């Protein structure tokens, strides 16, 4: 094995790597936040909207779930300008991630809403709770408990998926890696370090989400 590892060449660019990781976190965080608004509205539309809206949402969900994210990004970044909508690569990346996570989120949120049994809501009504109180005390917390695992793993998936945004040169970690690679020609070293950085972020979020679940979402014991 005659390969000389030159990690130092890559570490020289550590400010770029750090900035890339930060961009990835901001991009994923923003996309998740906006995506969840889309998902909640979409789930409401799917459970109680008019028939045409439900069909439209079904079409949206199936279209997104059955096509690659890379093609969705290309459609938004290269395809939309044909319709007169020109976006910067960062905006296009954010929009693509929101559109993508929204489709998965609708199904998650809907499952959460449907996990609340009708009897619970009726019990709340018969106790004289107002609709907003019923939503807050009877629907919201148990629903969050039910969807928390899928919601958090969706966020980590989104963060990892955001690396695909490098294909349109959005500023995030993978694009930073490509940039460093083209300057140092140290392909293995760059991608190895960046892979470790992604893994570190995943581990961090796995830990944080598990801690949050332990502290705030503990289910009351059934005694």
């Amino acid at each position, binding site marked *: *094995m*005659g*390969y000389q590892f030159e990690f130092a060449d890559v570490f020289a660019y550590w400010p770029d790597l750090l900035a890339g990781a930060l961009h990835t976190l901001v991009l994923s965080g923003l996309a998740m936040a906006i995506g969840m608004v889309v998902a909640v509205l979409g789930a409401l539309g799917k459970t109680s909207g008019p028939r045409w809206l439900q069909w439209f949402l079904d079409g949206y969900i*199936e*279209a997104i*779930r*059955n*096509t*690659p*994210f*890379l*093609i*969705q990004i*290309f*459609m938004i970044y*290269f*395809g*939309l*300008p*044909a*319709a007169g909508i020109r976006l910067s690569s960062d905006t296009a990346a954010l929009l693509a991630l929101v559109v993508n996570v929204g489709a998965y989120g609708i199904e998650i949120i809907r499952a959460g809403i449907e996990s609340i049994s009708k009897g619970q809501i009726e019990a709340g009504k018969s106790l004289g709770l107002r609709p907003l109180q019923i939503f807050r005390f009877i629907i919201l917390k148990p629903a969050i408990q039910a969807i928390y695992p899928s919601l958090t793993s969706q966020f*980590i998936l989104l963060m*990892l*998926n955001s*690396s*695909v945004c*490098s*294909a349109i040169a959005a500023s995030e970690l*993978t694009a930073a890696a490509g940039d460093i690679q083209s300057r140092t020609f140290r*392909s*293995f070293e760059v*991608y*190895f370090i*960046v*892979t470790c950085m*992604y*893994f570190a972020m*995943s*581990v961090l979020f*796995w830990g944080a989400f598990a801690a949050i679940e332990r502290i705030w979402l503990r289910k009351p014991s059934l005694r």
Partner: protein
Amino acid sequence: MRVLNEGDIFFIVTAVRWTLLLSLAAFIGGGIGGLVVALARTAEFKWLRFLALGYIKIFQGTPLLMQLFLAFFVPGIFGIDIDPWGAAAVGLSLHASAFLGEIWRGSIEVVPRGQSEAARALGLTYVPRMFLIVIPQAFRIAIPPTIGFLVQLIKGTSLASIIGFVEITRAAQIINNATFRPFTIFALVALVYFLICWPLSAYSKIMERRLTVASR
């Protein structure tokens, strides 16, 4: 720049065979690897379970794109020449091994312990116990999530275009660079992916519903 013609459309649509071939290779490779990972995850030895868990976590905690990049660049360290096809097939197989391994571990664990204990009491050794008693029962439960993952895998092959493998996404990019009709071209490619993935997703959903009804 030139005009998009029928030949271009034909070039893109027929490139789907490389998408399908890559998906098949990754599914076979991932199926074999996934079985090993699932058996290791449910093994009696703690170190083996731990090793398999580490493997799964690494692939679940890093982007598929990075896994493909490393599959492309790591062999070079050992002086092995690998082309984009080989790198994509190996990378996606390793990726699929982790995910299928985790899916199948779940299916194996759903089979009641008594089954395995009864087989042991009858004097069956590990291999016939797993392959004749446990896995056949786990198989039915595993079908819907396995098909669901196959859809993920087929979509994932599009990332092979980034390391330079000419499947349908790369073919579309090549034609787009010459003709610059991105909307038409990528909508066409999206449609092709949809026609492959949607029936699989629908089948997986129906099977899953049937299983939950049956187990109620």
